[in-house]
């Protein structure tokens, strides 16, 4: 009698497991060898490394984008990557390495930090090929990367100004350098007195007076918003029924609107207002996110600026500068008693250029000092001058400033000779770039990419008493004005060397030129 075999030799689990294991082995073999099945340059699939992240791929980058991140799916031979990165301008193939920068690595990701902001109005192409992978302890040369190519671009180079000629007189004019298009975007019945451009370029906030207003002249101004038709994302003027549409943000009911400032993110508007009935009711009002305006009820102040954090306001108050929060009737967050004026903030908001009038220092009486004050309270003097320091604007990386200042020229009488200087913030060196013939309400505007500085030179007509709105601070009627473009050097010129920056008169008649951010 034979004992029946209770179980077969191979159970279903054995059969299916062994079968699947064989099948999977074949698939693994195909995967491993698949990279070798090539005809010419085309393989069944690419088994080498590849770029799996390029933070600027198909993006529009602006002055805030100072570095891109390049990520790989494998550890890479860093040298081979750095050597093979190629950035070009497709429209200008002759330009070699238009965006120099420095590289740094964190594992499989590389950061490329630009030496200076990418020039506006340009399309760039990024290419990487022939870089190799490198694993730890890998002796032999690694596989080559799958060639990678991407494009990115910068916004159009564009400016806005208040026109002073013909149909443009008193109206906002936008000129797009990239597409060479010009548009008047405010209506004829409004005379624009001041304006700020929103960071996204889509809107401009401006103060304006009705052209036929006969009451209080410029004190009647109201705050408006207009759609520009320009965007960061697209080149040229966009079309649409909203383009040129005007919205009234703040009227002059009960109050005169004096000065205003717009935060960098465009969400906060600060307006200096005075009660028409009670001049003692004078101070800053804020409008946040389109809500109702609210008075801050602080001590009355003078010049003010919204800080880059979009949450604080620096305002001159009495003998110093108060840093104000947006809470009504709150105590100032800080008070810098030494300084009399804040000129500008660095783009990262960590430091500000301030002026000390040296009122408490008998040795420096009638001397003004330019200081760099950081958010830790450290104050560094940059230089002293007998003249005035009128305006300073930081370059995007915050390493340089361009300042409008004056020299006191002693002749038959004291004359203030305006000049524009380049200031190296780190080295604390000042290099005058250009001397201007006459100081009269000059406005400067540094391009977001730092490549051009706009300034205006106005002519006045003291005999014209008909002009109610377009006047200088001394009350003279504006006749016309030229807008100039100064192309400064990339770095501070050495002392004694020729400082001949390029200067070009732009074909616009107007004043208050401002670059689009």
């Amino acid at each position, binding site marked *: 009698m034979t004992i029946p075999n209770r179980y077969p030799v191979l159970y*279903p689990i054995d059969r299916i497991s062994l079968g*699947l294991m064989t099948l999977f*082995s074949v*698939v693994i073999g195909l995967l491993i060898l698949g990279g070798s099945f090539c005809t010419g340059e085309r393989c069944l699939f690419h088994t080498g490394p590849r770029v799996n992240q390029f933070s600027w791929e198909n993006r529009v980058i602006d002055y805030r984008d100072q570095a891109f991140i390049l990520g790989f799916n494998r*550890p890479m031979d860093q040298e081979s990557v750095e050597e093979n990165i190629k950035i070009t301008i497709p429209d200008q193939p002759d330009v070699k390495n238009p965006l120099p920068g420095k590289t740094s690595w964190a594992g499989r990701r590389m950061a490329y930090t630009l030496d200076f902001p990418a020039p506006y109005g340009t399309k760039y192409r990024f290419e990487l090929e022939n870089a190799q992978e490198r694993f730890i302890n890998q002796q032999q040369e690694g596989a080559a990367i799958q060639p990678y190519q991407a494009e990115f671009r910068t916004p159009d180079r564009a400016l806005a100004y208040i026109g002073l000629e013909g149909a443009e007189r008193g109206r906002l004019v936008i000129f797009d350098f990239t597409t060479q298009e010009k548009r008047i975007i405010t209506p004829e019945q409004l005379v624009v007195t001041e304006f700020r451009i929103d960071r996204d370029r889509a809107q401009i906030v401006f103060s304006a007076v009705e052209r036929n207003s006969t009451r209080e002249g410029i004190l009647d101004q109201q705050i408006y918003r207009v759609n520009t038709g320009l965007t960061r994302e697209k080149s040229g003027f966009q079309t649409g029924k909203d383009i040129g549409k005007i919205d009234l943000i703040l009227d002059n009911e009960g109050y005169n609107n004096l000065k205003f400032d717009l935060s960098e993110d465009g969400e906060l508007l600060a307006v200096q207002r005075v009660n028409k009935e009670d001049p003692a009711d004078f101070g800053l009002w804020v409008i946040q996110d389109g809500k109702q305006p609210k008075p801050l009820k602080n001590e009355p102040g003078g010049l003010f600026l919204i800080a880059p954090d979009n949450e604080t306001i620096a305002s001159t108050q009495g003998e110093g500068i108060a840093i104000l929060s947006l809470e009504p009737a709150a105590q100032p967050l800080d008070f810098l008693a030494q300084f009399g004026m804040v000129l500008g903030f660095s783009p990262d908001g960590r430091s500000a250029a301030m002026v000390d009038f040296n009122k408490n220092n008998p040795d420096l009486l009638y001397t003004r000092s330019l200081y760099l004050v950081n958010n830790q309270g450290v104050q560094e003097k940059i230089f002293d001058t007998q003249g005035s320091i009128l305006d300073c604007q930081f370059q995007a990386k915050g390493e340089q400033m361009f300042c409008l200042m004056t020299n006191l020229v002693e002749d038959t009488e004291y004359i203030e000779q305006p000049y524009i200087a380049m200031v190296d913030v780190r080295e604390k060196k000042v290099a005058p770039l250009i001397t201007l013939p006459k100081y009269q309400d000059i406005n400067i505007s540094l391009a977001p990419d730092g490549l051009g500085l706009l300034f205006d030179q106005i002519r006045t007509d003291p005999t014209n008493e008909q002009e109610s709105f377009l006047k200088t601070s001394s009350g003279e009627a504006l006749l016309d004005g030229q807008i100039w473009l100064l192309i400064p050097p990339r770095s501070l010129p050495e002392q004694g060397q020729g400082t001949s920056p390029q200067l070009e008169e732009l074909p616009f008649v107007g004043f208050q030129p401002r670059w689009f951010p």
Partner: protein
Amino acid sequence: MTELYTAFTLFLSLLVEALPFLLLGVLLSSALLFFIDERQLVAKMPRNPLLGALFGSCAGFLFPVCECGNVPVARRLLTQGAPTSVAIGFLLAAPTINPIVMWSTWAAFPHQPGMVFWRILFSLIIATIVGCVFSFQKDPWPLMQPDLAKRVMNQRANQTSTSSALWTKPDPLPTLLQSGTFLLGEGSEPVRLDDAATGAVALPYQKAFQRFSRHRVRLFLNNIVQEMRELGAMLVLGSATAAAIQVLAPRELVLSLGQGPVTSILAMMLLAALVSICSTVDAFFVLAFASTFTTGSLLAFLVFGPMIDIKAIGLMISIFKPKVILYLFAIAAQLTLILTLSYSYFF
């Protein structure tokens, strides 16, 4: 001597790390026995192999245990007559597809949300495929250890013959003639404690599901002690083996093997098996290799590690036969390699 100290430190750290999770798993398993009507739960489980494997894979959301805690629960599911695909799906995927592990992976790779997605997807695919494969074997004898297979067979017999009856004795022999451990004073007859593992003992207490009783608590505690004794011993053995291997084959040696996309995946899978790190923290461990290894190999570590590591093999021997563990190991390893290599090539 230094190696011995290192091995002992590794052994203790593995044990200390895993014990709370094993205890959690045993608690869950015992809770399944005494506080949930397992029959209804098991009856509701899908019998279709694919759906069953998917159900088991996603059951980690119900029982968030790591790879030490999932074994007792999987064992409980099998002994309760749950489909094999459900138990295998749970065994392989529950340590990964549960909220704690998803959160920790996200926390370790906050800038790579894909890591969480691919980890879950690959674990789900592998667990489902292996679950389906194992469902082809209807007879539990070739799969499981004889003792467990016997319990499963008993359970299945109970399920078929007593679908309407409330209680049937599992053995026709008088209890006095049977070997084993019995509880006295639990009714008219002694209750076999071994049957606690099968759930049969729960039946006399079915009416007591709604109320709290001293007897139930005692049985609950007894079950915890029994499972901890069985699985705890395996965990100690597994941890000792993992510690010994780590000392004999240092991590540096394993890592130096990864010199290409394929070998780096293999190295990380080997490392995952050797270090036996718990799935709740393995994402932080593997983060250290993020700069020197491919994303595919990191995924291989995160997918393969919770499925099979040395100390888990120790625990799984308490359920499966060695040959079956080899199948499980090999198919999971091959699928991990295929999926992560494809990821390396195509993403």
